[in-house]
């Protein structure tokens, strides 16, 4: 039987990376995710698996430490919350340009600016559309439970090395702070230095006589070459869009109306689906698990079946743009969001769905 523990989301991802064979964590404290680094230090990772944990002088330094560690072929990560992730964007862009694998976790809080320490989903654009300078994408995983915070550590490293890409776990203050039970896996061993040389021949580990020197750089001043580099990056993102889409469908088979929500909001909408069904409303939920790549095709299919979609987000309306692009006008798409760290209630979002799609329609009929 699997080992089960009651954990906070932030602790679960920390335990997850230890068990996924992570080599190095470089971080800087920021609410509401400081438990990640605290948990790693308290668990004596150096003694347990040999994993290095270092508190850097800033988020800027920590992402560039990750950049250095990733270049040497190791499994490395950092975590932060919105303002800290903003500071890291240049480093993430450098890793996109050099195609280095790493795991990032953003425990999103409300903004802009210092904003609030309460949960929010207002960093969707930053995570999904690139964030830093240049044309690039990261794989973005959106956990909706503490179990997924744990699971996405291992999955994140697998995807990061499979595609040589940065993987961001886009959580929020609610997922990071709440406690749920977590099923834990066996320890994945850390790679030895010899394994890294074999598995990752691109890594800068010291030039040996049997190969040319490995240069990790995003610079090429020749525009013709730079365009080729960029086209190859785009090919990779396209391939990821075709192969790595993940989503969950709840009560969608006979649904006439659809909630689209990820992370904390999807938990609220799951409850709202149950409330709606109890009232006889045929409502379902599509929960994107990967935000890039986005479940565009699945939404396009559902657009042929449902009468309306409601994107529920703790933001002023960011993911709703991707829902609209996916359905391409085939069905009305509305947005409902709470801002500033407020989580909507299930009956609140169900009311919105009824008002936007059902009651209005009834009114139209009566007039």
């Amino acid at each position, binding site marked *: 039987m699997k080992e089960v523990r009651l954990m906070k989301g932030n602790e679960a991802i920390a335990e997850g990376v230890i068990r996924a064979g992570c*080599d*190095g964590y*470089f971080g800087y404290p920021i609410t509401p995710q400081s438990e990640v680094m605290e948990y790693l230090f308290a668990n004596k990772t150096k003694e347990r698996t040999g994993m*290095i944990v*270092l508190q*850097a*002088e*800033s988020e*800027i*330094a*920590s992402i*560039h*430490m*990750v*950049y*250095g*560690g*990733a*270049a*040497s072929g*190791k499994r*490395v990560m950092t975590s932060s919350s919105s303002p800290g992730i903003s500071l890291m964007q*240049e*480093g993430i862009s*450098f890793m996109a340009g050099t195609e280095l694998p790493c795991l990032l976790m953003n425990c999103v809080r409300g903004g802009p600016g210092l904003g609030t320490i309460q949960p929010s989903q207002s960093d969707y654009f930053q995570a999904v559309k690139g964030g830093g300078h240049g044309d690039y994408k990261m794989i973005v995983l959106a956990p909706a439970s503490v179990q997924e915070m744990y699971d996405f550590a291992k999955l994140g490293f697998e995807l990061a090395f499979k595609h040589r890409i940065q993987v961001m776990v886009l959580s929020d203050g609610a997922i990071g702070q709440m406690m749920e039970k977590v099923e834990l896996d066996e320890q994945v061993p850390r790679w030895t*230095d010899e394994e890294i040389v074999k598995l990752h021949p691109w890594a*800068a*580990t*010291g*030039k*040996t*006589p049997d190969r040319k*020197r*490995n*240069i*990790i*750089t*995003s*610079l090429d001043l020749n525009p013709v070459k730079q365009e080729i580099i960029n086209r190859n990056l785009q090919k990779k993102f396209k391939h990821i869009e075709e192969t790595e889409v993940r989503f969950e469908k709840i009560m969608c088979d006979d649904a006439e109306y659809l909630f689209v929500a990820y992370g904390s909001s999807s938990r609220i909408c799951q409850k709202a689906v149950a409330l709606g069904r109890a009232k006889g409303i045929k409502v379902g939920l599509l929960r994107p698990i990967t935000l890039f790549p986005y479940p565009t095709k699945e939404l396009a299919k559902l657009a042929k079946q449902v009468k309306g979609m409601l994107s529920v987000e703790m933001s002023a309306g960011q993911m709703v743009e991707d829902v609209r692009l996916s359905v391409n006008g085939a069905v009305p798409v509305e947005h409902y969001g709470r801002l500033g760290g407020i989580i909507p209630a299930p009956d609140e979002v169900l009311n919105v769905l009824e008002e936007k799609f059902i009651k209005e329609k009834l009114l139209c009929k009566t007039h």
Partner: protein
Amino acid sequence: MQDTLTNEEICKPENMVYHRTALLTEAPLSYCPGCGHGTAHRLIMEVIEEMKMQANTIGVAPVGCSVLAYDFMDIDMQQAAHGRAPAVATGIKRLYPDKFVFTYQGDGDLAAIGTCETIHACNRGENITIFFVNNGIYGMTGGQMAPTTLPGMKTATSPFGRDVETMGHPLKITELIANLPGTYFVTRQSVHTPANVRKAKKAIEKAIQYQKLNKGLNFVEIVSNCNSGWKMTPLESNKWMEENMFPFYPLGDIKVPK
């Protein structure tokens, strides 16, 4: 015996007195003629070759004139964002404590945008080696004022001379980090005369050897010229450096192991 050797005799291996280290690639240096970067590159690569450390070395290149250092050094290298080389090197060294890890940075990179990373890597006593080339100007972007630009010195962004009242004072970052408990060996050298080149090579040897002791960060500043940015001939710039830079940035060891 003849006074002079024929060309054929000169080319005989037994008469060879000097050759390019195998660790410098054949790529032509992109530096301006007269610039000190080429000599600094050569010395570091010579020492790594002599110590047989190529397979054990990872270098970090900066942003600035030496952004393409990896084109000339035949070792594994990573190009860092502007100022972040000490953080990048920290990430590498923490995961590979047995490798020799160094950064190669200019004054804008190390002492302006990267001051935070420089000071904290030094203060944590990261077991890395920093080679810091200080020519008092931003070379690559076209000769703007650097944190190490001398008072009164004319640059593209201090066209009437650096006015310390409004533009601040030149930063003696090397003296500053020498005060931190995390630094082990801190020295300031130059490469503008054969005698100085020999001294600088000795300092570079020490800074590389000492990393094996795991006693903290080793730091070699090389005060250099920027004849293009200073708008002088190479010879004039070396003279100007001796007369103006060295009084403000005196050469010699600043912190030596006890």
